């Protein structure tokens, strides 16, 4: 117990729950949820004002994990930022690597060999499988299905992480892509092992969906909860599965056609209602399409080098200019905005973080629902605090 005269100056931390008097609604309760709450997926806080159990106001508070990633990147060379991008969305380091490598390649006019493009697609789709599987596990964990779905998800995630480890040397912080290709080539044995994982993934999804998709409790907790209208989603810059669950057909793999995606056949699943259940189901359907993409990529991957022989990694000094480049990450549009002044490090380095921007409408989705539903809605947005706070 700290004596009152020894408290730090400034506003007092205050109680975790306090009564608020509202002129119209009478007595409300302000609840500070987090930053150490298990359902907030990291150090994230929701200042929720409740009328009974109904949310009437909800302000997200974050920045607990802020380390000014952009400032660090402006002080080091282009290549030295690559490992830091792993730490943005630490579930999807391969996608982050690709987004950053693509931005620098556009800035410097650097081509990429064919085999590397296919390897990038394979790794990005494996990352998408991993992310969406875990998301479904977390979502169910948040809605009270303690343990089982998350353990199923982690069992499959482990298989993909083993692949990442044998290719890049690290399970989660892969640091694998380079400007002009990939760091090391995949061996035939690795490709075979990855193919086996991809081929078997459909069977796992069948099992997972038998457990979840028709589950009465999941439906009751998610259908009609947190409905996001398409027009609001576009205006608020929502991207990725959340946007498509709101019924907007916008997938950067189709729209921008980066990498070798124009050569691969896949469909873009859309939601009909924009509620939490749609956000779950769109992700499951996307995983089925990812398996299709992987099957084609393993079939078509050519032999050849994985690095452009003229690629410059150390001492890269792109000509003055700027670029904004984006890819379809598992959580949405992950983009990089780089400005070069001709020096060895970027003059301006900006990450367009999808989970940060997808949080914009958290309050809109939660209003009028109970506090227990707010937890499920947050789970369906799919945030990683390493990327939100940067």
């Amino acid at each position, binding site marked *: 117990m700290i004596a009152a005269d020894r408290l730090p100056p400034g506003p007092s931390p205050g109680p975790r729950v306090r009564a608020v008097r509202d002129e119209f609604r009478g007595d409300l309760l302000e609840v500070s949820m987090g930053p150490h709450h298990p359902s907030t997926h990291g150090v994230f806080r929701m200042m929720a004002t409740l009328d009974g159990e109904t949310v009437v106001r909800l302000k997200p508070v974050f920045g607990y994990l802020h380390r000014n990633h952009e400032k660090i990147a402006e002080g080091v060379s282009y290549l030295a930022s690559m490992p830091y991008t792993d730490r943005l969305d630490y579930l999807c380091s391969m996608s982050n690597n690709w987004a950053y490598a693509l931005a620098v390649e556009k800035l410097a006019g650097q081509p990429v060999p064919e085999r590397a493009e296919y390897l990038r697609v394979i790794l990005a789709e494996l990352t998408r499988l991993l992310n969406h599987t875990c998301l479904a596990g977390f979502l169910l964990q948040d809605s009270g299905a303690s343990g089982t779905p998350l353990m199923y998800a982690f069992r499959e995630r482990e298989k993909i992480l083993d692949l990442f480890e044998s290719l890049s040397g690290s399970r989660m912080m892969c640091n694998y892509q380079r400007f002009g290709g990939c760091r090391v080539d995949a061996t035939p044995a690795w490709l075979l092992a990855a193919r086996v994982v991809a081929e078997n993934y459909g069977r796992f999804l069948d099992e997972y969906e038998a457990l979840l998709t028709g589950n009465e409790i999941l439906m009751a907790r998610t259908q009609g909860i947190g409905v996001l209208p398409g027009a609001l989603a576009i205006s608020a810059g929502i991207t990725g599965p959340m946007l498509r669950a709101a019924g907007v057909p916008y997938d950067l793999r189709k729209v921008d056609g980066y990498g070798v995606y124009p050569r691969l056949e896949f469909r873009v699943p859309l939601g009909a209602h924009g509620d939490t259940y749609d956000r779950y189901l769109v992700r499951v359907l996307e995983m089925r399409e990812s398996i299709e993409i992987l099957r084609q990529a393993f079939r078509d991957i050519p032999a050849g080098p994985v690095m452009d022989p003229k690629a410059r990694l150390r001492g890269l000094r792109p000509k003055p200019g700027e670029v*904004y480049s984006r890819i379809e990450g598992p959580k949405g549009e992950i983009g990089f905005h780089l400005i070069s002044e001709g020096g060895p490090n970027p003059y301006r380095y900006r990450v367009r973080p999808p989970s940060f921007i997808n949080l914009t409408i958290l309050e809109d989705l939660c209003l009028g629902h109970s506090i227990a539903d707010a937890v499920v809605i947050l789970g369906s947005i799919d945030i990683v605090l390493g990327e939100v706070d940067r």
Partner: protein
Amino acid sequence: METPEQIRDRLLARFPRAAVEVIANPGPAAQPSLLVDSSHARAIAEFLRDDPALGLDFCSNVTGVDWPARGYLEAVYHLFSIAQRHGPVILRLRTANRTDQVAVPSLTPVWRSCEFQEREAFDLFGLVFAGHPDLRRILMWDEFKDHPMRKDYVEPDDYEWEPTPHGDVLAKARRHFPAAAPAGEERRP
């Protein structure tokens, strides 16, 4: 999609008193941008969003850039069209200086996606977005004073003793305890 020059000409025909300029981008990416004066920015943004040929309904990225050598701050907006699947159209707004006239109009009323990103640019660059509904710090804590993404930002001197002082840490230690660690005398563990 129309070129930036065509968009500029149409904007000037629609807003004769506005100042719109195309900023060339010499790099291989070839993404030129439109510099718009602050007093017309809001009207121009609404025009870009509602114009049927452009239809830039999706503001993807908002960020600040600090140019101490040129003496101003910039707010940069990357706009795309989801309906027509084109982009980016890049808008730039400039402040008069870096100290007391750092206000630019907020585009949050036009695109909701600017809400958190403008708060971030305010927090890290000190750009003041006039007309923003809720302009507070977002990543740094409320009591924080400076703007860390500015090029001339100086880290606070929050020195803590470390058991093996070397390099930067040793230099800092000397500033704090000149008697304990005289210059030129390195302590080795």
